[in-house]
């Protein structure tokens, strides 16, 4: 039976909204609207320039266009310059707006879940930890991230952040021209915590497209390069087996980790966001990466921030740290690991 995480969290966020977030959001709304207005006027100016171009070309037949070239060029260049200036004014205000939003809203939501947690909007999970997870083996040249949350839930220490990795690659298109494209490796939410059992091998649990699955399962060890890590593990839970692919270096250890209860919990976590998930259990830790196609924890300029639905999404994301630890029962330390 799936626990209903969504209903509980909506009630909590409504209380938080009324008690402490409403005033800040209304103040931030003024800043957002200023930026929004700059952008809207810029779009209107561009459209105005295009409209006037259409008007001139419509009014003056072909031969007379040359005589009015100055007016036509001005009617195009003017709006372009003005529009670009307005966009620039808006863009200059965006970083400050986002900074205040993260401080006044995201951090407050994180502390409402647990006041001892640390939130840093500029920090992220390190490259070292990303590599240690062995979840994504494709090389990358760029590693971005933000919105790091770290702390403890009961006995379990955790850390999470948004991460974005990938590289710019050169290629030749069908016309023979040299171009550059962005090839992403991972974009989304990255979490890691102590696991509550001793682990000797490596176990991977993946839900995703063929390419990302192949990337996680690809061995990077020098003597097994080109092969897959471990062997397939066929588990008894049919729904789990349909949702996730599992590979492990030990059939027994995979089942030691993926107990019937843990499999149900992972399914429940998956059902909250229904996004591709990659997990690894190795070196005494659990790593979880959830792929998201949009930016996380970023306020929208185009939608009002005074919006319970958007706040609830933020709450769910931040509360995921606690949800994972509680659902996976990581605070139960009845085995040999403390």
């Amino acid at each position, binding site marked *: 039976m799936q626990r209903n995480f969504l209903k509980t969290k909506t009630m909590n966020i409504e209380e938080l909204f009324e008690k402490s977030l409403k005033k800040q959001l209304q103040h931030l709304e003024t800043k957002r609207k200023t930026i929004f207005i700059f952008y809207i006027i810029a779009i209107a100016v561009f459209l105005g320039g295009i409209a006037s171009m259409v008007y001139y070309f419509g009014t003056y037949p072909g031969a007379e266009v040359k005589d009015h070239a100055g007016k036509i060029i001005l009617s195009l260049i003017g709006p372009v310059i003005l529009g670009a200036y307005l966009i620039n004014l808006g863009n200059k205000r965006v970083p400050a707006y986002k900074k205040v939003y993260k401080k006044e809203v995201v951090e407050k939501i994180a502390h409402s879940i647990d006041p001892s947690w640390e939130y840093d909007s500029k920090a992220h999970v390190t490259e070292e930890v990303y590599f240690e997870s062995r979840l994504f083996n494709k090389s990358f040249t760029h590693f971005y991230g933000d919105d790091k949350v770290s702390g403890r839930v009961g006995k379990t220490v955790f850390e999470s952040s948004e991460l974005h990795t990938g590289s710019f690659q050169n290629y030749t298109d069908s016309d023979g021209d040299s171009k550059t494209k962005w090839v992403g490796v991972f974009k989304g939410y990255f979490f890691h915590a102590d696991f509550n059992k001793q682990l000797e091998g490596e176990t991977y649990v993946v839900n995703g497209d063929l390419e990302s699955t192949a990337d996680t399962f690809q061995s990077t060890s020098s003597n097994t390069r080109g092969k897959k890590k471990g062997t397939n593990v066929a588990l*008894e839970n049919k729904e789990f087996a349909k949702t996730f692919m599992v590979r492990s270096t030990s059939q*027994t250890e995979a*089942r*030691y980790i993926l*107990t019937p209860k843990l499999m149900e919990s992972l399914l429940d976590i998956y059902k909250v966001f229904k996004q591709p998930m990659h997990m690894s259990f190795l070196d005494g830790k659990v790593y979880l990466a959830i792929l998201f196609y949009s930016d996380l924890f970023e306020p929208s300029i185009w939608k009002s921030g005074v919006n319970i639905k958007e706040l609830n999404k933020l709450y769910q994301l931040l509360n995921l740290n606690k949800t994972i630890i509680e659902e996976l029962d990581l605070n139960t330390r*009845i*085995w040999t690991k403390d």
Partner: protein
Amino acid sequence: MSTLTIIIIAAVVVLALIIMSMYNGLIRKKNEVQNAFGGMDVQLKKRHDLIPNLISTVKQFMTHERDLLTKVTELRSQAINPDLSSDAKVDLDNQISGAMKGIMVAVEGYPDLKANTNFLNLQRTMNEVESQISAARRAYNAAVTDFNNGVQMFPSSIIAGMMKLQTKKVFEIPEVQRENVNAKELFKN
């Protein structure tokens, strides 16, 4: 060489390759079952090694459960016999599991024992071993299911018949163990 001859030779080669593949597959599955049982056996031995320490720790406190402790000791002595068949090992393991659960239930009535450091460490180790045994059983059952599928499903069943392979039993929890442990019933022995 005529076309028909070539086709016949090719068909024979393909058939031979299929038969070889099925034969190797069955051998691999059989070895995986043995390997999985070996893995379970290792964990059972770990549990057997822990029992004397557990008995000597709890018997200082548990004065009313002498019969239960004696039963576990006897079962353990039988279980460490190297000449036991696989079925006998499984049967004894089930009995030991039931008896160990009885001890853990009885421990609840002894607060001093529950707070004892040696017992707490032993309990953690026992929990670890029990989790490993449970995982090893599941791995064994998966290997047996895979093997049984190979033996029973057509066309590998033909090759399995020629190799005189028979299906194996999965590790089942006996009815006695499935019922909630009734501590009173255990102490009747």
